């Protein structure tokens, strides 16, 4: 099953990473959006999304690195349906 990892704190991305599988995706929300300002090589060619509204809130909207795809809330909801399940890594 394809899993969408929801990451809301910066340090949690690294903690969750060993468990990312091929075809999985991650979406950065809340304080974790700061991670999208840097190029990030994920294993398995994982899809990488970052939430637009949380970027705008923090003034980071124009600082997103090229390997992150910006999604808004409607697209975030759609993503949770495209993947078989969502896991919030707390």
């Amino acid at each position, binding site marked *: 099953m394809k899993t969408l990892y929801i990451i809301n704190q910066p340090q949690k991305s690294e903690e969750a990473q060993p468990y990312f599988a091929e075809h999985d995706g991650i979406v950065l929300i809340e304080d974790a959006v700061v991670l999208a300002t840097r190029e990030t090589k994920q294993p398995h060619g994982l899809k990488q999304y970052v939430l637009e509204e949380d970027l705008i809130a923090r003034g980071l909207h124009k600082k997103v690195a090229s390997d992150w795809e910006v999604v808004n809330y409607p697209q975030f909801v759609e993503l*949770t*349906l495209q993947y078989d399940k969502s896991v919030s890594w707390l």
Partner: protein
Amino acid sequence: MATFSLLVTANPYSSQGQFSAIQFAKTLLEQGHQLMRVFFYADGVLVASRLHAPPADEINLTKAWAKLAIEKDIELVACVTAANKRGIVNAAEAERNALTGDNLDPAFAISGLGQLTEAMLESDRLITFG
């Protein structure tokens, strides 16, 4: 169209998770999806108090959830164990525990963890905001 439930464990005061959960809920409803239940657990239950007095220029999260619940007929359920130990009680629980007062907002119900399990089994997606 899909049926969602949300599990909200986020502290309403020192984290952003409740804001995210409300925004997610509103968005999925706008898209025509169903929201079966919002289950509050861990520190998430704190939002179910009716005694919040935030500064006038700030959002009252309890009222924001209540508005959504009334307008869209959404179930807001707080876990009884998590709630009672966090000082969130309805009148019956207050009496049973010999407490002088209660503070549950009327838009929220208090019930058991079985309501979470049921939501998992009966929804297409469960999304957690912690």
